[in-house]
């Protein structure tokens, strides 16, 4: 079953613009991770934010987490054509030491040159 729901499902922007993608989840989490996937194959880890963190940055990426609203957002600044991909949020549950990821359905981002 999918825990996360990303919003929007598809996003098309011009190169240089910022892209904001949102994710909501249902149950308490240990951490939330964002991944990028090109061409339907391997996923690339972008950033991990723990439940006691509110914001993290990595290069052009900024992730926020609001555990009271059970939501997260991924901001990509100054987008490039190479950012075109599918983006997934995934959560690790709070219970015990189980570290399996529960993914959303993903957001398709298209960056027009």
């Amino acid at each position: 079953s999918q825990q996360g729901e990303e919003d929007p499902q598809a996003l098309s922007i011009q190169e240089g613009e910022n892209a904001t993608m949102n994710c909501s989840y249902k149950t308490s989490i240990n951490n939330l991770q964002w991944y990028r996937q090109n061409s339907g194959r391997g996923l690339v880890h972008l950033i991990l934010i723990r439940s006691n963190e509110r914001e993290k940055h990595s290069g052009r990426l900024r992730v926020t987490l609001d555990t009271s609203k059970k939501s997260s957002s991924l901001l990509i600044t100054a987008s490039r054509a190479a950012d075109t991909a599918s983006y997934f949020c995934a959560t690790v549950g709070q219970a015990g030491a189980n570290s399996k990821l529960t993914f959303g359905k993903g957001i398709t981002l298209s960056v027009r040159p």
Partner: protein
Amino acid sequence: GAGVSQTPSNKVTEKGKYVELRCDPISGHTALYWYRQSLGQGPEFLIYFQGTGAADDSGLPNDRFFAVRPEGSVSTLKIQRTERGDSAVYLCASSLNGVGYEQYFGPGTRLTVT
């Protein structure tokens, strides 16, 4: 260093046949995961190993699916009596030590059951 590798990259098999999919995790990673991804969907969890033991196999869809990790590194996902509904990309990931660590994914094996 080497990432997670998976073999084969593509596998076409006939309905009813047996298949094995292999995953080589990053050296030193104790946790290994299998996921399955259908077209247009996010990956779905199948099974998770911590060392040699399956810590959680709740995602395996039925008893035709089985996975092993006998020496705590390489893992094999085995599917018996394949069905057309098993067609998907099977993804393997590893992490340093489970909870709190990012997972590194392999390129996947695209399984097609005809």
